[in-house]
């Protein structure tokens, strides 16, 4: 499913921005630049984000959450996109998470494939299991496990309590989730890149640009909030694609990423 439904909800967006900014800033180990704050279209949201980044995230909570995967994504955006900053991420849409309950188990999905299982991310209390690599299989190349990509990508959340699939967001051909992390017992962030699929409900320009993208999911409220970054210049695409592979490799060096 491609997230195209747009419900501009200022309050929800503000709260979501707070959480996303906190997660990403904590991952990057830095606060957004003043430039980034000027880039934010919603002044209230920008203030809330600044307030949040000033210390809303308690150190004890931070310690309980592994934001390592997000850090490599943030680093890659900074390295590959000129003048990229966290503040350049703007609210694109909020939508209900489409819960696609399926009576399938983690074993059915991943079997004994340890390389594939190593990419799953458990929530802090172990209730949820996040898989941001829907559409990837592991094959053997030169005696090593290697990533094999299908046409469609997406992310999924399994309920560890019932060992069943609860959320199934297939993003389609145009999006590439890189990795994800839990920022609370029921909240997760997935980051990646994707083609711009709409602009204010209208078709995007042709050709549509590819941008950094982040999804903030809340398993309690079943809300999914999408944030967009600036367009990746075509001239820098090769550099960006290499940065993506480097980030994958940092996430799981045992796998050959292509």
């Amino acid at each position, binding site marked *: 499913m491609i997230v195209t439904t747009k419900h501009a909800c200022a309050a929800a967006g503000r709260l979501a921005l707070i959480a996303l900014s906190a997660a990403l800033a904590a991952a990057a180990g830095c606060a957004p630049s003043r430039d980034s704050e000027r880039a934010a279209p919603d002044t209230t949201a920008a203030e809330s984000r600044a307030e949040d980044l000033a210390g809303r995230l308690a150190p004890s909570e931070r310690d309980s959450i592994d934001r390592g995967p997000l850090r490599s994504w943030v680093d890659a955006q900074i390295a590959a996109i000129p003048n990229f900053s966290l503040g350049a991420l703007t609210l694109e849409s909020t939508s209900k998470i489409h819960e696609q309950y*399926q*009576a399938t188990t983690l074993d059915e999905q991943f079997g004994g494939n340890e390389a594939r299982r190593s990419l799953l991310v458990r929530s802090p209390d172990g209730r949820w299991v996040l898989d941001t690599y829907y559409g990837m299989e592991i094959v053997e190349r030169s005696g090593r496990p290697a990533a094999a990509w299908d046409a*469609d990508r997406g992310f999924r959340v399994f309920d560890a309590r019932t060992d069943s699939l609860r959320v*199934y967001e297939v993003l389609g051909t145009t999006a590439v989730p890189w990795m994800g992390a839990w920022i609370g017992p029921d909240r997760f962030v997935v980051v990646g890149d994707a083609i711009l699929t709409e602009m204010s409900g209208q078709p995007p320009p042709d050709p549509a640009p590819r941008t950094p993208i982040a999804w903030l999911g809340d398993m309690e409220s079943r809300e999914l909030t999408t944030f967009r970054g600036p367009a990746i210049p075509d001239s820098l695409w090769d550099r960006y694609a290499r940065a993506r592979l480097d980030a994958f490799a940092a996430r799981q060096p045992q796998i050959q990423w292509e």
Partner: protein
Amino acid sequence: MSGVSRSLRASALAAALALAHAAVPAAPASAHVVCVDPGHGGADPGAVGICEEESINLGVSNYLLYLLQHDASFEGSFATRTTDISVALSQRVALATAGGAEAFVSLHHNSGVTIRTFVMYDTTGQQASRWTRSRALATASAERLCVEFSTPHALDCDGVCVDQAPQCSGSTLYVLRENPLPSALGEPCGVGAAEAARLCSTSVYPDYMEEARGYYQGLREFFGLTAIGTSFQAAGGPGADTLRWTESDPERWVTYAIERSDACWGPWQPIASIVSHDDRYTPDDMHYTYIDGTVSYARPYWYRLSVTDERATAVTTPAALPPATPPPAPQALVAEGAPLAGGRASVSLEWAAQQAAGFHVYRSLYESMSDCGAAFDRIATTSATAFTDTTAPSGIPLFYRVRAYNATGGSEVSPEAALVVDSRTGAPEPHESAASWPWPNPASRVGAVHVTLPHNGHVRASLHDVAGRRVALLLDARRLAGDLELPLDSGTEARLSRGVYFIQVLLDGRPLGTRRLVLLQ
């Protein structure tokens, strides 16, 4: 890493065993064998909207396979899957090469209406000569899809792109990158968006046929086979239908065979054979006209033009003749099967009908996407309202339809009856293990009914009225074995009225059964 290596070796062994047992056809020497690859399947539904992507991929694939297998130029073509099963990416490529294919076409669908329809190819991992051919295949497919699409898909349908380009997938795709064959992967749009809601609200996805024809014509173009399909036209008139077509190569000498049917899926009756350059039909060796003065009824006729190894189909509008008064379509078609020796089955069919002089009985091995979407063969003609088919294969899905006829013509076809006859002699048929479903019965029309699943699997449950029309898709997802609740207010926009319905449940693509259900209140 040792655990990883063990699991990889186990996977490779399993794949090799599966390949060894796969029914990959031998490639005829003179034909262009194509491997059609419907994406996703089994536990992987792909993009999920109103429909699941994997089922649309499979529907288009089955129809494309039908077109290819009925064209001598593509004899021996095959698919990586023809049912709802999981196939690993590496196995898809291995099947294509093991089957002697010359081209590989992977079928997918995008989920947003604002996404361009595009066909991808890959430029990494293989020699330049291979990806040049892949680009030609992708270009031909995209151009022909654009010609065939008559729906909103026609918007922005001209895209061809390299898979790793930022405006495309942004990644190298395994089935394109690792494939030694010329390979293309199509992504028409519209699985999950509002348009799909309309398309999928019926039991068919109307664009199956257009899309499959697009790929088919693209493959003909890719292999240098002249496409005559777009030039063959038919028009109805008073007492006669007029057929026109254009010959793209006026220098060649061929014979045109014209066939006619009163249904898009046949049976086809030969009505004329015309030699090229016959000036009774062509004034300039390019444009041909043939008038069929033997039409009998004011109803559409389908015409088929075959030229050596090429074939095209055109449909007339009803001619201005006295209207036909064919009998109504047979109803309540029921099929029950029993295994026979030698992998065959005996299938007993019964139906209800009025005002009919006789009946044609049809069978297909493919699920019917629409009247024209399945390869139905007429297997019998009878004057009774029952027939026993003793030539059916066991262990695979069978689909039956019946059509009534009288002196003025044939009726519409009956609703479909589907079953699988278990090939193990004496073994119970799947529906017998859940003999008591659905319950409660009668049920409340705003309540739910329960069915019993004999094993885990993908469940597709639908509710049909007494005319066989689907009024609700109650469920289309994987479920665990045991009790399964199906809310009756799901999958339909309007509240169901009181009355008699039929609930049909497919488990992993195989019929669990079709049962009568009475709704009250």
